[in-house]
């Protein structure tokens, strides 16, 4: 176990290194992305730009620039080229919002996907199965910016059931926190519920007539116990894999559409705005931040695996 975690940490360093280089390179080859121009503000003179270029080190070779920027990320001195605001501060401010969105949505989509997947598998071929399958496909096909906008308009603005945007920290008022987040959670979950429940359904159908499920029935267990204790546990593993990946991605700013639609001002929204302005430092920092979480959640998922299926050894 200890060796496993250490090994994962080492591989994480490799992942972060590769991703940072890739991101950095992308922004160096994009046309019209000269940071000196961004820093100089409107209508600068050639001399001003040159001065900034020298001052910030943009005249140095690319690898020196990269090294400098990485150093700044880890010392916390990284500053946005556009707003000159400290990137670390901004991420620290946005991360709790994104994290709140991710954790609530991840629980929501997992719970509903398991319930739906199991139910449709048990009723496979019946009316309920077909109806819910169509519903799941609709959930998968609806873009979040559209369903989010609809929710905002009807539930938020027109009928005033839920607040329109805004965020209350969990530490301030847990109830208000959840109340403000219900719409984003739901909008983000719909897609995942659709996908996960479909996958779980087919996994359950694969295992529901397996020999050990038959043994469980031959023991005289009620069907509900056969399903929950024997079938479900063996069907969950692929879902858990996906869950780790998706959760990591959402924490790392992957839910930028949801964040933007509901104006959550999370990490995703921040990175989206930074990309629009070709502002390298925040993008690089958020990408690293996201990659970090993807690797961490994957490590956690692998540990969950080993508990779900003792045949899997952590090495």
């Amino acid at each position: 176990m200890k060796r496993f975690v250490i090994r994962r940490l080492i591989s994480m360093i490799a992942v972060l290194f590769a991703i940072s280089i890739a991101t950095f390179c992308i922004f160096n080859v994009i046309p019209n992305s000269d940071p000196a121009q961004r820093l100089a503000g409107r209508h600068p003179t050639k001399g001003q730009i040159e001065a900034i270029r020298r001052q910030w080190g943009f005249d140095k070779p690319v690898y020196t620039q990269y090294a400098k920027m990485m150093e700044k990320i880890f010392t916390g001195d990284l500053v946005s080229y556009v707003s000159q605001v400290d990137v670390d501060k901004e991420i620290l401010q946005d991360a709790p919002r994104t994290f709140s969105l991710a954790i609530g949505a991840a629980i929501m989509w997992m719970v509903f996907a398991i319930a739906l997947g199991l139910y449709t598998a048990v009723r496979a071929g019946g009316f309920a199965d077909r109806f819910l399958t169509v519903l799941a496909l609709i959930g998968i096909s609806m873009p979040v910016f559209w369903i989010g906008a609809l929710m905002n308009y009807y539930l938020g603005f027109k009928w005033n059931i839920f607040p329109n945007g805004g965020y209350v920290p969990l530490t301030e008022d847990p109830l208000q926190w959840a109340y403000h987040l219900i719409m984003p959670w739901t909008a983000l979950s719909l897609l995942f519920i659709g996908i996960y429940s479909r996958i779980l359904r087919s996994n359950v159908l694969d295992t529901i007539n397996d020999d050990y499920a038959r043994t469980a029935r031959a023991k005289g267990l009620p069907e509900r116990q056969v399903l929950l204790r024997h079938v479900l546990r063996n069907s969950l593993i692929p879902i858990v894999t996906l869950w780790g990946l998706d959760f990591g991605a959402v924490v790392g700013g992957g839910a930028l559409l949801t964040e933007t639609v509901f104006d959550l001002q999370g990490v995703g929204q921040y990175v989206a705005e930074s990309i629009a302005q070709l502002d390298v430092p925040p993008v690089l920092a958020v990408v690293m931040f996201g990659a970090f979480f993807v690797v961490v959640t994957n490590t956690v998922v692998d540990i969950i695996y080993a508990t779900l299926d003792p045949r899997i050894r952590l090495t």
Partner: protein
Amino acid sequence: MTRVEPILRVSDLKVSFATDQGLVRAVDGVTFELLPGEVLAVVGESGCGKSVTAMTLLGLTRSPNARFAGSAHYGDTELLGASDAELQQIRGAKIAMIFQDSASSLNPVQRIGKQIAEQIQAHEKVSDAQARERTIELLARVGIPNANKRVDAYPFEMSGGMRQRVMIALALSCDPSVLIADEPTTALDVTVQAQILERFRELVAQMGASVILVTHDLGVVTDIADRIAVMYAGRIVEQGSLDEIFYDPQHPYTWGLLGSIPRLDRPRPKRLPTIPGLPPSLANRPQGCHLRPRCPHEFDQCAKTPPLQSRVPAAPAHLDRCWLSCDQKRELREIEPGVIGLRRKHEVELTKGGAGA
């Protein structure tokens, strides 16, 4: 002689499956009785319906396309068409099952002790600790060394033989009166097979349970069976005591089965005798006797289905489905009666010139 009340009465059991090729009659009118304490072996080749018969008794034939007819009484309870709740009371507690492939029949992600304790707790109100204690006891009884440690093992940490012992312990855990063993030793190598059968026979005898042993291995049958039912293409074609079947087989299919066992006590034939042809497709079977296309002794009457009835005058309990007269059969059958099994008792009888025609 007072008649012993059978513990299980199956009459005219029919199971068919609707498929693209038409109606497949997997089990076509199977009738038998199981007496308390006896071991009934159901033998036949793959696809003859023996496993489906066994599964159907416990309502484990789960297919939306399956159709059932006939009846199966356990005591006063009708098993066919019983509700799930009724079946749950019986499964594991009254009638327990031992499956063939212990590698896939045990839940791979659950400790074996838990899997056994789960069955005990499904039927009896006992605490976790008590159930665990009983599980350890059971594991020791089926011959698992270090049972108090192995109880926490996962199936993948055990050998095939040990896992099959776990399956037996599981089946015995609620002291059932009927055990259905579906090819219990087929997946094991011969030495382990012998050990496990021996232990199984001892335990069953101690408990006084009846056993339905589904197998295609006649060696296993001679080891533990009291009575044999030979199945072919969904029907029982012959039924009788171990000695009746082995020493005075009436049905040509039984002759073929017995004749295809390699023998150490005879000159080695060039080729091992086999039954010519293949079993019929269950969707499209011959009229009358199902063996007709493969049987060298077929005649006009075989186009009508022969009923399963007593045809040997001296043995009223020996039933078969063949129109030939008893004398004709004794003349025609190619295999000589004699030692087939491994039981020493039979060898003694043979040297005395005991059984047979």
